[in-house]
């Protein structure tokens, strides 16, 4: 089982939207996928139409042997299960603090190995103890970015932070919510990959369809599978796999 995390220090860049749609695309391709909604806001859980509730909260999840397995819920989609969010996740850092190690999340996820091909982590926007655990556990860190100057700054911050991690995950940035009518968007999207070869070639376009996910409570790749944005998510998943395969070699 591989661990793919969707992460950015900055909020509102499309982490959850990407996590939900990419996980769905992966499941369509036959990948046995589990998405863990680590954000106490529970947006991924909401999009998959499930309740943001975990029995016993984060403390039980991190300390009881089979709590993780028992908390998993199936979704409406075959090959795709969900570890729901819980409001207690706001105390994630406190619970992890007790373990005095950054490996607890990784250790815990090992119990899921036999059931899933990929564990997708939808991370909250912060640089915390939880983020450090994510970076130790993940094989790939997928980083959505808005094509703006401020957003690029966070890339450098995350990149610098990863240099301190012992075995850092493969960092794969890509642009989301791209509006090619805007000059700034166009220039950033074109210029950034020249200095950052790890940038994924597919950019996710801005689309009002994505905003409707809150109403349909489903991935756009399921509700509007032939839309431009759905096609882009399929292409992005292919990019991620290609980059990961190259890195493994």
């Amino acid at each position, binding site marked *: 089982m591989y661990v793919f995390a969707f992460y950015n220090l900055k909020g509102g860049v499309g982490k959850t939207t990407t996590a939900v749609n990419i996980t769905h695309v992966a499941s369509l*391709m036959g*990948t046995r996928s589990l998405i863990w909604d680590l954000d106490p806001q529970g947006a991924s859980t909401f999009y998959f*139409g499930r309740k943001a509730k975990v029995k016993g909260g984060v403390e039980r999840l991190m300390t009881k042997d089979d709590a993780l397995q028992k908390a998993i819920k*199936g*979704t*409406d989609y*075959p*090959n795709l*299960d969900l570890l729901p969010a819980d409001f207690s996740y706001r105390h994630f850092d406190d619970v992890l603090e007790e373990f005095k190690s950054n490996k607890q999340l990784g250790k815990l996820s090992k119990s899921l190995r036999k059931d899933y091909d990929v564990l997708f982590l939808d991370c909250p926007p912060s640089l915390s103890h939880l983020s450090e655990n994510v970076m130790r556990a993940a094989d790939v860190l997928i980083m959505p970015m808005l094509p703006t100057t401020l957003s690029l700054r966070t890339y450098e911050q995350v990149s610098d932070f990863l240099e301190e991690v012992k075995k850092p995950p493969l960092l794969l940035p890509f642009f989301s919510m791209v509006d090619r009518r805007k000059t700034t968007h166009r220039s950033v999207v074109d210029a950034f990959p020249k200095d950052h070869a790890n940038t994924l070639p597919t950019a996710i376009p801005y689309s009002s369809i994505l905003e409707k996910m809150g109403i349909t409570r489903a991935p756009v790749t399921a509700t509007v599978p032939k839309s431009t944005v759905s096609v882009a998510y399929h292409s992005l998943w292919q990019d991620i796999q290609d980059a990961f395969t190259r890195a493994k070699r």
Partner: protein
Amino acid sequence: MFSEYALTGDAFKAAETSKRTKSGIVPTTALTMTQLSFIDSIDGRLLKAGLALIWQPSMGRAGHLSVRDAKTGERRVLLAMKSQPEQLVDIPPTLLSGVIHQALGGRALIALHQMKVRVRTADLVAKGQTIGDILYIAAGPKDEALMWVETRRGFESAAQASLKKVGQQRKKPKLFHAFLASAQEAAQLNNKGFPALKPDEPAASAIATLHRTLLAQMSSQVSGTCKDIDIEFLHDLRVASRRARSLLQTAKTVLSEDVQAYGLERYRWVGQETTTLRDLDVYLHDYPALQGALSPEMRAALEPFKELLKTERKRAFRQVKTLLTSRAFQNFTQQWTEYLTSDTSFTGRDAQTPILALANKAIAKRYQRICNDGNAITDESPAEALHDLRKQGKKLRYLLEFFASLYPQDVIKPRIASLKKLQDLLGSYQDCAVQAAFLEDKASVLRKNVSVPADTLMAMGALADQRLQDEKRLRTEFRAFFTPFAGTDERAAYKAMLKRG
């Protein structure tokens, strides 16, 4: 979680209509007649690896492939696909496809067994959430109605509560296991296995059983051979045909003369007509190894040889396909089936002899002949002597396999293993000679083409020389392999087996 429910009364009626039920069953498709197919290699390699692949057609050629645990029926992956997969590459890459790849070993996927059923899919819904997938199935002679339910993880109790009124949950998925058992049976038959014979069974009945099995084994490879998706289909077809010929020679005192002559002539015809394609398949399959045996600078020069093989293979394949779809081939299988069911075909003097007596005699005779022929081989004997010995060995191997059920397994298996060691050496020895001749023959064809570079002919010459060197080396090893096979211990083991048997 996977479970099978037997439907009763109202639930049965509800499943027949497309209405949503109070239990939360929401039909998603209409009731249609379809064929569920158990997908595997022809010899059931995925089943052996604990995987059960079931293909469920939907619209046109499209459908869903579920990869299940063969023991429990638990669905591990569900894949929507544009057509039924025929090879590993047709299945999207998942971690499971690594397991499938390893188990398949390059073999093609076929429908090992099919089940004609009426089906409808439905969602199991509770409190607005989909908590399970349902496949309603009406199958069997009594049109027994049941459901396969794949409950979403974490909703097991909710699903059980919803479905309690609909039907009875079976402790074990009976239909799934019946489907599995039929597929296993088909795989076993295709896997060159033979039904068990009774020692006192009249030879006529036993030989008919063996011939029917061989005909079924040969026929089961025809479709795959014609589709040209896996070269092993033709190989297995030829093995079945060769074995049938060998059995005809062994049991010549059981069948009537004219029936035996007919069978021999037709099976020989199948063998002869398919030899060229099989040879070309083997050369193309082994081409990377052949090329790798050359020095790196010579490897590229071999390409025209590969092109020649490909061109000749195309022609040979067309001929084999024409043969296997011909009226003459159909007539042969039909006529042979009729002969095997007719009493008048089994009028030889040994027709009523117990099969064990016949098997003992045939095995003893063949083993003795190999010992005599092998002992007579000296360093000066021609290569043909070793080739003939290999043919005798093959016949003995077939006898041991046909009649394996008549002897204790712990006795017959070591005999097969011991023979196999000798046969492997003799096989490699013959391959060297045949390959050298083949390379020289093809080089003479390429020589006529002025555009073929001299380097190609040199590379082929180098390979032919290598083969001849290997042949010489293997020849020196013959005695070391033959002595244990014909030695005192092995002789005693054969004697004891045939006496006990």
